[in-house]
Structures are given as C-alpha cells and as structure tokens.
C-alpha cells in the first residue's frame, strides 16, 4: 500500500510540475532521472511481492512511464540519459570482472568453455537455418536475394546468441546466489560476450564485402576488430593495474574513485575505439586478482552502482516500443521460443561433453536467455551499416530482445531458487564487506 502511495505521489508530482516548466529545458533530464530512480525502484519492490525479479519491475516501470505508454519520461529525456546507461554498463562490467577469480576460472574453465561453445554454435546454426529456410514467412527477409538473406540471417543469429551480463550480475546480486549454477552462468555469459563481439564484427566485415552497406564507413574492417578486442584487453589491464596501485597506496574516497574509474574507462575506450565492456571487465579482473584490497573497491562500486543500475534497466524498458512489439509479436515469439530451445539443447550438449554436474546441466541455460545492452548495441551497429535494407530486420531484432529482456530475468531467478543457491538472510552491508561472492547491492 505504501509503495502504491509513493507511486501515486510521484506521478501526481510529475503531472503538476511538467506543465509549469518549459519542455526541453536542460534540467528536464535531472527531473526524469530522479523520477525514474524512485519510481522504478518502487515498482521493483512491487515485483518482488509477485515473486518476480526486481529487474522485471524496473523494466516494467520504464515501459509504463516511458514515451510509448504514459509518457512521463519523454523521448528526449531517455536519449539524454544515455550517459547514465554508459556509466551503468561500465560499473557492471567492472564488477563482473571483479567477480572472476583466477583460481575459480581455472577450476571451471573446462565446463564454461565447452558449454559456451556448444550453446553458441548450436543457437547460431539453428537461428540462421530457421531464418533462411523460412524466409518467405519473415517479412524483412522475404524480398531479399538468397545471398543477402543468408548474410542478414547470420547477422540476426549473431545478435540472437548474445546474452546479458547486466541482467546476470544484477540477478546474482538480488538473490545473493552463490554456487555452481551462478558461477558457471556468469562465466559463460562473460566469455561468450567477448566471443560474440568477435563473431559479429567478423560477420559484418564479410557482409560488407558480399553485400555492400548503404552507409559508407559503417562497416568495420577486420584489423579494427582485432584492435577493438586486443586493445580493450590492454587498456583494461592497464586500468586495472593503476586501480590496484591506488588501492595499495591511497585507498581513500573509494565511492568517488569507483565512479571515476567507470567514467574514465568509458571515455578512454571511446577515444581509443576499443570495446568498453571488455576493457572494464579486464580492469575488474586484474584489480580483483592483483590487489589484495580489491574487495574494498568492489564494495564501494556496488554501493555507487545501485541507483544507476535501477535507472539503466528502467531506461532499457523505456526504449521498448510497445506498438512495434505488439505488431511483431506473432513473429518474434516463435523466434524467441526457438532461440530458448536451442540454448537449452546446446547447453545440455556442452554439459555432457564437459561432464558437468546435474545442477549445471539442468539450470544454467535458464540464465542464458536474457538479452539487453550488448544485443542492443550490436543492433545499432547493424542499423548504422544498413539503414534502409536493415530497418525491418532491426525492428524484429528489437522485438526479440524485448521478449528475452522481459522473460529472461524471471527464468534465471527461478533457476537460482530451484538450484538452492540463493540466500536471503544476510544483510546487504555485511555481505558486501565480508563475503567476496557478493556481486552487487540489493537494489
């Protein structure tokens, strides 16, 4: 009841204030930001009453208050808040890297690698085959030449095999999960993220040769793909080393330092044209495994990440175009089902190949269904390369991502609960300071 009252007050306040000011004023973005933090967090809490992850609540809040529904947060504000999303991605990537301990990676390397390889390969193959074979039922592909359809189908499949590190991290935080399923899922998601970026970039380079893009310079040369990946690892390692030095010799004002690391990482990777998420992930990994004080910084980063993560998912929800989703739902839903089935089958094959435990075999695939930021970024790259021919396919991709974005978190939460890896008893602060397994604060 209290939460509904908060929501009502927030909405009433916004309705009173918005007509009094001049729309488009620079401060509108602050108003939208503050509203989204409180409103999305409240809806997230309501979601927990319905036994849904808080993330789903944040996404629903974004959809409900976003431009395509109530319009409390305008399209311009959503666009202007992209900096917050970038900061959230950087913080999430750093935290994800910090979660990976070298000893842990070595121990699980075999299982992670084999499950990931089987899952990615099978899903990519199935999605490409389905799209090409049934292209006459897929409007964006039906009018294309066979070669074009194959290339675009492969690019679509490359987007479809992306997972969501952000959702994985946020859910591990929310449920305080630890154990084989949680750690293997995280490992697969993080390493697959690197592999998918490589695959997508290579495919786009091939596509550029076979199906010349409409936008000049939009496609990525092969050399720059290697720089994007290799450079990211170098930049990330350097950033991690500097961070470790700071922790060793200064170790003060960590809250601000954590935000600065994320900002600096975002900006330097943008300037050097290297993959931001991979660089920050490497930085987190190096910091955690080099500095003895890595856990302290992670704690500070977790605390500063809480509000930006709420807004990150709310913004992801606000970007979902409900009208478009409704229109493409009959086509996107079967594709989502095929994708999920392929992930299930691929993960099962990989688990058998690696002789993984029962829990991992049964539940890891649930955590691989979610899609969010990385997938959206790849869709944008595709749309930049093929602004005219790719417009319908882009809409279909976005619809597929929207479905996975909504369904995936609930599935992963169920897997973590069912595998008995969640813990709801320890207080947030104590866990942050004492247990290295904790990932993010409970938002």
């Amino acid at each position: 009841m209290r939460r509904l009252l908060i929501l009502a007050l927030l909405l009433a306040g916004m309705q009173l204030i918005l007509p009094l000011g001049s729309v488009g004023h620079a401060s509108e973005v602050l108003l939208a930001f503050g509203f989204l933090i409180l409103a999305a967090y409240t809806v997230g809490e309501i979601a927990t009453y319905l036994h849904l992850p808080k993330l789903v609540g944040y996404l629903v809040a974004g959809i409900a208050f976003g431009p395509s529904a109530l319009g409390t947060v305008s399209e311009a504000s959503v666009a202007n808040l992209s900096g917050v999303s970038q900061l959230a991605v950087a913080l999430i990537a750093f935290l994800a890297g910090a979660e990976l301990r070298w000893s842990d990676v070595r121990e699980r390397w075999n299982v992670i690698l084999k499950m990931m390889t089987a899952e990615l390969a099978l899903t990519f193959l199935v999605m490409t085959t389905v799209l090409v074979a049934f292209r006459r039922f897929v409007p964006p592909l039906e009018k294309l030449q066979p070669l074009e359809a194959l290339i675009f189908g492969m690019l679509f499949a490359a987007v479809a095999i992306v997972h969501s590190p952000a959702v994985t991290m946020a859910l591990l935080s929310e449920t305080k999960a630890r154990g084989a399923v949680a750690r293997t899922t995280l490992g697969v998601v993080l390493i697959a993220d690197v592999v998918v970026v490589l695959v997508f970039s290579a495919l786009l380079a091939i596509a550029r040769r076979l199906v010349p893009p409409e936008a000049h310079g939009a496609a990525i040369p092969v050399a720059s793909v290697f720089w994007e990946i290799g450079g990211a690892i170098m930049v990330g390692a350097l950033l991690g080393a500097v961070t470790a030095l700071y922790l060793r010799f200064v170790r003060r004002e960590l809250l601000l330092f954590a935000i600065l690391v994320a900002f600096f990482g975002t900006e330097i990777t943008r300037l050097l044209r290297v993959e931001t998420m991979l660089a920050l992930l490497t930085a987190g990994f190096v910091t955690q495994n080099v500095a003895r004080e890595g856990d302290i910084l992670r704690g500070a980063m977790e605390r500063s990440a809480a509000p930006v993560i709420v807004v990150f998912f709310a913004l992801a929800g606000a970007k979902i175009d409900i009208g478009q989703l409704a229109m493409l739902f009959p086509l996107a839903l079967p594709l989502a089902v095929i994708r999920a089935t392929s992930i299930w089958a691929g993960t099962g094959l990989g688990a058998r190949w690696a002789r993984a435990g029962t829990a991992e075999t049964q539940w890891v695939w649930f955590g691989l269904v979610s899609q969010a930021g990385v997938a959206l970024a790849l869709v944008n790259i595709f749309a930049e390369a093929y602004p005219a021919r790719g417009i319908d396919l882009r809409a279909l991709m976005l619809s597929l991502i929207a479905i996975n974005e909504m369904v995936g978190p609930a599935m992963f939460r169920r897997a973590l609960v069912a595998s008995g890896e969640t813990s709801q008893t320890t207080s947030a602060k104590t866990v942050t300071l004492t247990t290295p397994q904790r990932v993010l604060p409970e938002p």
Partner: protein
Amino acid sequence: MSATLVLILVVIGAYLAAHVMFEWIARRFLIVSGAEYLLLGILLGPHVTGLIGTTVVSNFAPIMILALGGMGLLVGTGLRIPEMRRLRSVHFRVATLEAVLVLVTVAGVMTLGLLLLFEISAREVVLSATAFGIVATASAPSGVILVARHLRGRGVVMDQLTVTDWVNGAVAIVAFAFLLCLVRVDPTAGGVSLAPIEWMVINVGIGLFGGILFHLFLGADKDFDRLTVALIGAIILTTGAAAYLQLSPLLPTFLVGVILVNTSPVQKQIRELLARVERPFYYVLLIFAGAAWRPGSGGWIVPIILFLAIQTAAAIGGARLASRVNGMTSSLGPNWGIAMLGHGELALAIGFNYLLLEAAPLADLVFSATIASVFLTHFTAARFVRSVAQDAASSVMPPVAGNR
C-alpha cells in the same frame, strides 16, 4: 585529448592532491582547502587554456545543477533542531539581526553604486544588488567547523559563530530563492506566468514534497542500499524539479536536508552517507564554477572593490550592532564579525546559480565578485574564526561564564 577525459583526470589529480597535501595543510596551518579547485577550473576553462570548452561546460549543466542541490542539502542537514535547542535564544536573535543587517546594507550600497556605474533599469539594479547582498550574507561554515574541531571545546563565542553560520546560510538560501522567483517572472524566462510569491510557494512545496517522499520511501528500513537510492533519488528529483522550473534548487534541497536530519530514524546512516558524497559535490561545484567564469571588462573593477569593501564593513559593523542591540557585546567582544568574513561553498553556489540563469541581470559581475571574495577570504576563513575565538577566550570568557 577529449575535454571530458581532461576533466576526469583533473578531478582524479585534484583528489589525490587534496588527500596528500591539502588536508595536511588544512590541519597543520588551519587553511581551508577548496578555492584551489576553483582556480583550477578557471585555468582549465574556455577563457584561459580552453581545455574545458564552452560546449563541455554547457553539456555538464545538469551535473552542475545537481552539485548546487547537493550543497543545499548539506547546509540543510547542518540544522539539527535538538542541537539548536541546547543553545540560548539570544544567539539566534543576534545571528538573525546580523544576517539581515549584512543583506540590507550590502544590497542598499550596491544599489547606489550600480545605479551610478551602469546604465541599466532600476529593476535590474535592485535584483543584482540583492544578489550581491545575499552572497555577502552566506558565510563559510568550513572555517567554523575546522576551528570548533581544532579547539575541541565550546564557549559563548563558538556557540554564537555556529548559530550565525546556520542562520546566515538559511537567510541566504531563502532570500536567494525569492530573488530567483522575482527574476523568474521575466517574460524571457519561459514556461507559465505566475506571481513571484506563487513561485516561492511552489519552490517550498517541492522541498516539502521531497522530504515527505523520502520518508515514505525509506519507512523504517535501515538497509544501506535503500537509503542510498532514496537519498540520491530525492536529491536528484527535487533539484531537477526546481531547476526545470528555473527556480533555485538550493531551497528545496535545503528543506529536504532539514526534514530528513530532524525526523528520520536513520540520521546516523544519513550523516555517514552524506560524509561520503559531500566531497564529490563540492569538487564538482568548484571546478565547474571556475570553468564557467567569464572575464568581464575593466569597468567591473570598481563595483567588485566596492562589494568587497562594503561586505567587510557590513559583516563587522552588522555583528557589532546586533550584539549591542541584544546586550551581548561584553560576551562576544566588539569584533566577532571578523569571523564571518570568510566566503566559501555556499556563497559560490549562490553566485554560480545566479550565473546559470539566463534572465539574471549582471550575472557575470555578481559571479566574478563572488569568486574574488572567495579567493580573498576562503583560505583564511578558519584563521579569522580562530582569532575571534582566541581573543574571546583570553579576554571575555570568564565574565561570560558567569553570565550564563
């Protein structure tokens, strides 16, 4: 190199410098640090090196406004009613009279000065002169805090300085909010047209709404993450709402601060959290304020000197008159107003907020005068306070103790 990257590196460098050098200097020599970041902002800004360009400054406008909101909150959280109730009411009477005298004197003299120096309308002169008066009223709390910590004790003079600092902050923030409501009615300000008093009611309403919302949101929960989200959400929302209506974000966040620090069951946690975010707000404000400064013409020198002279005279004279009217001269000594000469973060926030308003007359001049005052007095603010506290301790403390 990108300006954003330069900015990040500067903040990191400044931060390290602050911890390695300035904090030690502040403790050792009683020098309040902060103005050096302002200087750094000016040096990096578009009018000196140009490393932070005009576009970057305008792109970061929401962050600057947020820093202003954070400053209001920090001032508000200083007003703890249980602490204030332990002090004698005469301190509040002296402080209020001193604040009003400084405000009126500086505004009055500056009105005359600006009328003689500039060919602008009477309305513009009065508005900008009032802005000068408000800046003069906002004394620097850091000096009082530093000395209070240094002396590890209380006395009549330290109590008076503490109360005066609170009252100066509150008077300056309320007066400034009303000034912006007057500026806001300018037809060029955009949005709907309301009377200044209506804008003032809305401004206060935003603060009260933010405070109530914070309470509802937090409930009895003491979870640290929930507190972080609630506090950050409340600051951003109230700041954003006020700035969106082109009102002062200082007053609503000040009210949120007063409400939460006096009514919340988690005051300790709030103070801990604020201690963590205080510095970021302060550094961002100082660096951006410096970068946003625009140099003026040679004709500005006279009004700036006039402002510096009159604010010094008003602070000392106002304090002396206020203590005499309330029969406190023997307790406080004749020159306790010297302790209020220091200008710091709040004065700068007010000057900066005034600068950000498109419709504000003589905004560059007011801001330049604020910067000049901060440079002249901020480093020595703690020394002013200590000299007054020590003079009082050596000469007038025994009779004071008897009086109490």
